[in-house]
């Protein structure tokens, strides 16, 4: 069965970081996960990106038992300080 990987706030809301969830598309797997973990998880999921293996994917992406579907909430920054200018990428 497809592996579901839950990260950061998604892991906390689901109560687990890894699970097996049935479904043949990303959408089916996410819907099953939302049902399984409840409304707080569904709320986090609504703000998250979903990747299949190491690439962003859409709800209609097809997945098989060897794939990993990861739920990635918004990130909080790779280090302690926050940039004072968000648009400063060179």
């Amino acid at each position, binding site marked *: 069965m497809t592996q579901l*990987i839950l*990260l950061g*706030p998604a892991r906390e809301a689901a109560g687990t970081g890894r699970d097996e969830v049935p479904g043949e598309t990303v959408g089916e797997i996410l819907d099953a996960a939302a049902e399984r973990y409840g409304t707080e998880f569904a709320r986090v999921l609504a703000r998250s*990106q979903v990747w299949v293996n190491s690439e962003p994917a859409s709800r209609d992406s097809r997945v098989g038992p060897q794939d990993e579907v990861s739920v990635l909430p918004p990130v*909080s920054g*790779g280090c302690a300080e926050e*940039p004072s200018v968000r648009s400063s990428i060179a």
Partner: protein
Amino acid sequence: MEVSTGRDWVALSDEPLVPDALSSWAVRPDCGAVVTFSGTARNSSSVPHEILALEYETSTDLALGRMSQVVALARTRWPDLGAVVVHHRVVRVDVGESAVVVAVSAPHRDSAFLAARFCIDALKKTVPMWKREVWSGGAAWSEQCEDLVDPAQL
């Protein structure tokens, strides 16, 4: 967990980061400049508590992949770079300790400064990494968060 070539060294570690070891590794005889950025856990944030530590959580494979992509992008933009080091610490980082270190060497300081700045900005936007702020008696996910950006969009 790490990915190292002769010129690039990308790693996630649950051990303390030693900025000196990383900037020393970046020294090259044909490079006159090494710029090192160390992101250290600090004691204040958006929450009204004295922060004691930060806890980082990630997927090792996904994070290392994105970190390597960032380094590759930097090399495309500044082809004269010598060495590029990108290390992130995970799990608990106490105040004053390094959570992330970027070290870049180049023949001249222009490229070294620009590439180091690019790398840390890009890491923050593109690498799956979640941060909990820990204070005495509590902890919470950082409220300052943004959608992950694809490196191709930088």
